[in-house]
């Protein structure tokens, strides 16, 4: 019995040690000050809770080790022993209260630390949740430098960034565990999330509030880059879409504007001006398709356009019924939109 309990405890401890291993999208592998603060908090709470738990278990199990004594009269209680126990219980209660006060203060101060992260954020990004993708708008005082993109958020590494998050349909939640805790995107409300990535890198995030059929496939990537790389990226993204370079791509361009694609998507520099679906102006420069569902590749593009409902059932991208040549042409065009 005791051994079993021990081995369960050991197993649990081992698993916790392993916890740091899966780093991508893990709260335990912080890459920014907010997540760092929180990871510390998690470990501290966990350690403290483990100690408390072990103590309680010890008190529970130790009497079992004693030899069962003959059962006495259930109602005859030793008054002195009762008083002694009462003292112990009261002491334990006081200790509990003390720990709780400590933890409350700890979370209060952690909260203050988190609030201070973005106080000097130079970059404001507006993230709007849609079923089931993220619209990302880089705010700028000069309107023609406002950039709208989707699903992938580039940020300068080492700088605080302010995200203003909201939604136009249902409630979503923005969560990139490596960088920060989550915050809900709520229709009719605007929430502010400040985050900072210490080092360049790609951090995966995912919608954390159930938002319908494709809640599972609503991911995002935060790509932290050194400031110059970021600036270059921003500048590059502000260009209108690349012109098609091959005849096939040209055909694809024409088809794109003639077929249902044009009804929902935007490609800068063409008449395609949809806003209800992700902006495709530089789609080929992104890492993934369909809010992190598929890696960006020619094959995946074709697969996605040919049968989005097979890949992401319930998503708002319809099956449009293109023949093979049309599909290839459109893929060729989109592939060129770096």
């Amino acid at each position: 019995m005791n051994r079993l309990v021990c081995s369960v405890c050991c197993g649990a401890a081992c698993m916790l040690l392993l916890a740091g291993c899966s780093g991508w999208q893990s709260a335990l592998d912080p890459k920014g000050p907010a997540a760092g603060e929180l990871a510390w908090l998690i470990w501290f709470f966990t350690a403290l809770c483990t100690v408390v738990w072990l103590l309680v278990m010890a008190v529970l199990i130790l009497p079992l080790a004693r030899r069962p004594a003959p059962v006495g009269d259930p109602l005859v209680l030793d008054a002195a022993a009762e008083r002694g126990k009462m003292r112990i219980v009261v002491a334990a209660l006081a200790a509990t209260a003390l720990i709780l006060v400590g933890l409350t203060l700890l979370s209060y101060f952690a909260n203050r630390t988190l609030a201070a992260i973005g106080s000097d954020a130079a970059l404001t990004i507006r993230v709007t949740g849609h079923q089931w993708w993220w619209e990302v708008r880089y705010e700028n005082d000069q309107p023609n430098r406002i950039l709208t993109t989707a699903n992938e958020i580039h940020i300068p590494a080492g700088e605080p960034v302010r995200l203003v998050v909201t939604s136009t349909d249902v409630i979503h939640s923005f969560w990139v565990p490596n960088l920060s805790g989550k915050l809900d995107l709520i229709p009719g409300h605007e929430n502010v999330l400040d985050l900072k990535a210490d080092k360049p890198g790609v951090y995966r995030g995912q919608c954390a509030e159930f938002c319908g059929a494709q809640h599972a496939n609503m991911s995002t990537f935060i790509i932290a880059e050194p400031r110059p790389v970021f600036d270059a990226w921003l500048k590059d993204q502000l260009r209108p879409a690349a012109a098609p370079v091959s005849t096939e791509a040209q055909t694809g361009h024409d088809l794109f504007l003639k077929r249902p694609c044009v009804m929902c998507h935007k490609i800068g520099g063409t008449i395609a001006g949809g806003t209800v679906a992700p902006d495709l102006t530089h789609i080929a420069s992104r890492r993934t398709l369909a809010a992190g569902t598929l890696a960006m590749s020619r094959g995946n593009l074709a697969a996605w356009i040919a049968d989005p409902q097979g890949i992401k059932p319930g998503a708002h991208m319809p099956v449009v019924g293109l023949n093979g040549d049309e599909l290839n042409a459109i893929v060729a065009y989109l592939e060129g939109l770096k």
Partner: protein
Amino acid sequence: MNRGLPCVLSAMLVLAACQREERDTRPQSALGSGDQPAAVTALEPGGQRPASSNNKAGVFEANAFHLSEGKRLFNWFNCSGCHANGGGGMGPALMDQKWLYGSSIESIHATIRDGRPNGMPSFRDKIPDDQIWELAAFVRALSGNAPKSAAPSRDDDMMPHPSENRLPDAATLGKSP
């Protein structure tokens, strides 16, 4: 008794609800391409008109999911720009019982797909056929022609008109709002 109640209930619901709740996101196989244009007038020479040969479109009309998709697309594809939320504007009202080009879902489908000369643009190739059917079903729902139990209720936007469930009851209350 304990067994009877669920049986009756389920039988009732099976009849009433099954298809209404189905969420087929790839329904295209259910219909042909809709190439057979529907007659838009009730007037036909030579006596009685033949019964409609293809009633598959009813699948869309009685299905809550398709109706709600139709409602979403109605806004996404700017139908609401001309027809408002059914009351009309640049385009005619859709929530009344006046149909310029036929009230059948096939006629509405044809209207959306091929356009009409007095301003209705043609969305052939621009909207996948399934979605046109969904739109057509929703347009019919606007004037109360779809089962109300499957029809969408109010929007989460500005209230454009009294809720669907209120419309027929305005008379009961003695006045319109």
